[in-house]
Every structure is written in C-alpha cells, then in structure tokens.
C-alpha cells in the first residue's frame, strides 16, 4: 500500500477494477458502471458525505464508509449492495419521507425527483415511522423561482453550487438539527436577496424544493449535468 504507486487495483462487488490514486470509491464505481445510490453528491460540486446513502462496506472493517469521499487503496475490497446496506438505505429514505411533507402526487417534480426515484429503486413501499408533518413556509417572492421548504431534504446542493460555482453564496443553512432550513442571505426573502438569478440551485435541487415558476405540474425536469462541463471549461481556461 505504498503511495508511490499511482494506480491502485481493488475489488468492488467481486469485480476487479483499477483506479488512480486519490480517486473516490464512487468515482471508480461509476467508471465501471457499478451503481451506488447518492443524494447529496452531484458531479461538479464538493462532497460533504451527508446523505449517508452511498455508504459501502469495506472487507476487514466494521465501519461503513461514504463512497463519495472515501478514497481507494490498494487491495481494497468494497461491497456496495449487501442486505445490511440496503436496509440502512431504506431506513434513511424512510426518515426523509417522514421528516417533511413529501407528497409526490401534487409535486412539481413528480416523475423527475431523485428522492422518488431512489425510493422506487431501493424498494421502499411503506414508511413505518410517524410522519412529522411540520408546518413550513413556501417562499414565492422571487420572480422566477420558488422555494418550497416542505420538499427540501437539506442536501445542501443549492448552498454548494451557489458558493462554489456561481460564487454568490446566497444560500446557506440556518438552525440546527431537525429545525435546520436553507435560507437566502441572512434569512431574507429570496426575491429581495442578492440572488444573481442564475438558476443553478434550481437545476441541482434533487426534489421539488426549488423550482421554476413558469413550469408547473410534472413538466419540470431538472438538468444538473451542466456542472462537470462547466468545471471542465473553467479548468481549460
């Protein structure tokens, strides 16, 4: 396991793969078409390891590691889809569904929602926990976008894209724990904030929490794929 070796070989789900030093497990897995579910990760932004859906097992360790930030090492054996992991993933998704008011049938992102897709993919059919049904506000003060906190899962993609790509840092998190909420500026209305109206936060939002006003109903696909391209162009410059 010397760091001088630039290329690492490892095993992910019984498949032998190679990787460059410093690559994350997630990057390597995706290169080899091995699917690891993610929610807070979006390509082109920094990783925070917050959603815990990409946790994987490493042979020889009882600790689960987030694939989006854990880097590979020589001889590593990764399991991405054990029964234990599937159970944890379903429980985490359940926790999200019960945390706020996720009602797909009346959501602008119905059919384009990453949370919905993940729930279907992970075979989540029921929520065993009591729904918390919090009373949260909807901020429609912006002339182009709306923020519906009832659908927010606090992945902080909006916070990161605004700070890291747009460079405006309008979004941030306020409060603590279950009372956390994303805010614009110092908790001003989005419409009167220093928002640059670029719309990147709306594009990266995995649910219907941030959406464009002009699009209603289910016709609201999002497109976060511009980020890697944007980053590539910036680096080339």
């Amino acid at each position, binding site marked *: 396991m010397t760091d001088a070796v630039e290329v690492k070989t490892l095993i992910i789900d019984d498949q032998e793969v190679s990787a460059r030093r410093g690559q994350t497990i997630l990057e390597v897995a995706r290169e080899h078409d091995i699917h690891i579910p993610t929610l807070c990760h979006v390509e082109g932004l920094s990783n*925070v*390891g*917050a*959603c*815990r859906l990409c*946790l994987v097992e490493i042979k020889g360790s009882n600790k*689960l590691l*987030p694939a989006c*930030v*854990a880097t590979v090492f020589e001889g590593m054996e990764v399991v991405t889809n054990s029964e234990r992991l599937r*159970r*944890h993933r379903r*429980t*985490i998704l359940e*926790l*999200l*569904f*019960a*945390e706020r008011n*996720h*009602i*797909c*049938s009346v959501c602008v992102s119905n059919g384009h929602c990453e949370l*919905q897709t993940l*729930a*279907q993919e992970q075979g*989540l*059919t*029921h*929520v*065993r*926990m*009591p*729904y*918390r049904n919090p009373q949260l506000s909807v901020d429609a003060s912006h002339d182009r976008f709306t923020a519906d906190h009832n659908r927010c*899962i*606090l992945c*902080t993609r909006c916070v990161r894209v605004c700070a890291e790509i747009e460079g405006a840092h309008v979004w*941030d*998190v306020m*409060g*603590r*724990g*279950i*009372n*956390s909420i994303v805010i614009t500026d110092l908790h001003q209305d989005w419409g009167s904030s220093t928002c640059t109206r670029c719309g990147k936060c709306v594009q990266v939002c995995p649910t219907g929490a941030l959406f464009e006003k002009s699009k209603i109903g289910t016709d609201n696909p999002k497109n976060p794929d511009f980020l890697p391209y944007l980053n590539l162009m910036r680096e080339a410059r």
Partner: protein
Amino acid sequence: MTIEELEQIAESVRRENANFDYEVSVCMDLACASQGSDKLRDALLRSAEASGKKVLVRRTGCMGPCSHGPLVRVDPDKTLYGHVSPGRAQGIVDSLGGEPVAELQCELNEHFDSQMRVVLENAGYIDPEKIDDYIAREGYKALVTVLMEMTPGGVIHRITESGLRGRGGGGYPTGLKWGTVAKAAGDVKYVVCNGDEGDPGAFMDRSVMEGDPHRVIEGMALAAYAVGASKGYIYVRAEYPIAVSRLTMALREARRRGLLGINICNTPFSFDIEIRLGAGAFVCGEETALIASIEGKRGTPRPRPPYPAVSGLWGKPTLINNVETYANIPPIIRNGGKWFSSMGSERSKGTKVFALTGKIANTGLVEVPMGIKLRQIIEVIGGGVPPGHTLKAVQTGGPSGGCIPAEMLDIGVSYDALMAAGSIMGSGGMIVMDDTSCMVNVARFFIEFCMTESCGKCIPCRAGTAQMYTLLTRICTGKGTMDDLALIEDLCVTVKETSLCGLGQTAPNPVLSTLKYFRSEYLEHIANKRCPAGVCHMHAGAEADVFAPAVSQEVVA
C-alpha cells in the same frame, strides 16, 4: 526564565506564606460561589483583620465535594468546614489556634482518602488568578526543564510511555496522536485545546480551567514543543465566562513571565495561545466541527479521513486534545512516564476526574485511579444514595454513554470495561440514579438532548434522533406499541452505523443500554401503561387516541 528563576519565585511565595500562622482557603468555584462564598470571603477577610491573628485568606478553585458547599479549609490543621454562611466567618477566625468549630466540620476523610489526585492536585490549594501560586507548586517546571534538556521526540516518548489516553471520551492514545502530528509534513502546525464541555451533568473541564488554568496552558505549550507548533487555540464555550476570564488572565500572566511568546526561555521555541469562544453548540466538541467553528464557519463535522492530525485547522496538521488530557501532561513530564503508568489498570493508565451528580450524598468532583470499582466510587467516595432509596443505575459518558445497572457495580472503571458494559468512559460525567428514576424517561431525555444538539447535516442523526424522540415520547405517555419498540431498535442500529460523526454514532447508546438492562420497564410502559418509577404521566385512555398516526403509512409515490 530559568529553573533558578522559577525556584526564586516559588521561594518568595513560600516566604510570604510563612508570615501567616493560618491559611484559610475559600472555595470560589461556581457551586460554592452561587451559595455566597464571595460574601463569605469578604467576611473572613474582615474578621481576620479585626482579630489581629496572622491569617491568609485565599480564594481557590473547586475543592471537590460541591454538595457540602460553601467550603472552607483551614491549614495547617486541614480542617474542612461545609455549609459555611458569611455569618460563621467570625466563629471560624475565633477558633483558629483553638478547637475547630464542631458543627461546621465535614467528615469526609473516606471521601478524600479513596481518591488519587493528579489533575486536581492544585485544586483548592492555589489562587487561580495568581501565576506565582502555581509556580510555587512546581508549575511550569516541566516546561522550562523540557525546553532546556529534552528533544521533542523525547517528550513524545515520555507521553507514549505513560500510556495516557485521550480524556475527552474517545480514549485515543495521546502519545500516538502527538507522534502523528509531529511526523505530519508542513512547517505550520496548530495545537488546539477542546474546552467545549457539553455533556449534561459534567463540569470537570470547567473546574480545571477555572481552578488551575496554568496547568492547561503548560500542557499545551509542552504539546506544541513536542509536535512543532507555534500557535495554539483554546476553544471554550461561552457559557463558561469565569473560565474564559481566568484563562485570559492566566495567558496574560504567562506572557508577562516570558512563559509564552517569542523565544520562550531564550530558546528558539515560540508559542502563543488564543482563546476562541464557542456559541453553544454541543456538536462543536466534535473535533472537525470544532475546527470549522474556529475557522469561523458553521460548526458542522466533516467526514474523516483526512484526520486533523494530517489536515486540520486551515488545512494544517493540528493536534486536538481535551482540557483534562493537557492537564495530565505537566505531572507526567515532571515525574516520568513510568510513574504515570504505575497508576491505573492494564490498558487505562493514570487517573480520571469524574463529575459525580444525581441521587448521591457527596456530589461534586472526584479523581480516582483508573480501574477502581464503580462500587467504591458510589458507595465510599460518593457516600451512597440517600437513605430509604436503592441504587438503580449509573449513567456514564453523557448522551454518548449508557446506563450501568446496580448489579454491575463491581466492574472496574476503565475504557474497555465500560465499553463492554455498553457504556463509555466519556469525558467524565457520572449520574447516579435511584429507584425514583424511570429509565425510559432517562433514555428519552438523552435522545432529546441529541435531537436538539444534532447539527442537521446528515440524515440519520437529524431525522433519526427526532423519530426516536417521538417514539419514546409515545411510550412515556402510554401510547406506545410493541411496533414502536421494534422501530426504535431498528433506528438505533441505523443511526449508530450510518451517522457522520460521533454525536450521531453514539446517540442511540442511552437507549440501547437501557433496553439491554431495563427492558422490563419499557414493556411495563407499553403493556400495562404504567411507569414503575412513577415518573411518566400516562394519558387516560391512551389506547383510544385517534390522533396518533397509524404505525404504517403508505408512501405516496
């Protein structure tokens, strides 16, 4: 500053003290101060002056048995008085040279004899605002000696040899941590002291910072020399204003004496310390969150690796230790690693300070050798539970720890034994519970604490603790079902295994340990809607509550 100069200062303090026939020390720590020990001190000063006797009245830090406060100790007779009101000052001064005031005397010989004081060796004997008092008790001798005679490697070797493990709760070997930071590449390194003590019922670090602040500063300076750092931060929570002011004063005095600053003792070693205040978030005691907070960011943890030893404050190698860990360093350097490792048990060396609270006669601070039986702490040092009640459990480790039932009191207090019992050593909170405590309610209290203190970054901790709190509340109000209990157990596993930082990973411990040892209490709440301890209020006709959400609801997908 040289060893000789230190010795001169110590000598002058001793000479000054020799002018007095009696030393009357008044505990001015929070517990005693809240009962008027400042007025008591003024009264003692007035009476002493009027009496014409040669009496030195000294303000000190925490003496230990807080439940007997305000405390006054008279030397050289070593008489300890408890519950002293300002009106009693005259009587105490009058008694000097004669028979002690019998009705005020505390019979706490057993309490003190079973203890072993290393970290608290100066507590109750020095004025925390006088650096010379600390120097007179061998203070800064370790630092000056090390700068004159030892290499950084030698310091680390001595710490490794001592077997000291982190006193913040994790129990990571301190020598190993120092070695890692020392070896880490980079010319800028930082030393951080974690004084963000937040466990309910724990006040060890506060007492050390308030009662003996120079000990922490000396420990940090020694650490900085060992790892090659020239800048340190003490992160103290703003809820400890006295600790902040004492530390600020101590830093100023240390600088004035040339024990901090540029070229300390005319060596190439430079080191200074800045104080940073926490804004009340428990999670900032987690090292990566603490680093973010010092950097001025939102105090949320980040995944490790990289560990702070490699990439910490502003991306530089950073050594983070707890207050009590640093407080152990000067005596280890002075007396040697072998001296330290001769105390304690096989894999847990030295002593540990505990904040003894709850249903027990002598609450307060105690310091005991590792490996001591829990029974010894509770029954001998603590004086047992109040008459007419029986001990039920001992909670250690705060919200990250667990409850140890009365049947297991004969385990030795060490990192491994407590871990095996389903609890943790933690930073040193020890809450004693008798038959008037409901264990379900205790679990609910700690989960509520974790829920409100969760930073909200990762889902299992943020939403998981909130769900567990809701479910436990149901059980505590007589609305709980067996399905709720099964769900709680399921959530415990997920929150424990998937949370990002230590807060979430250990949050289920109070629930898991009470479920393990007191399951019958949970079942009694659920099946018979009855709280055996009579703590929980059960709603009449709870079963028929139509507003309680059904156990299973369909996902709208």
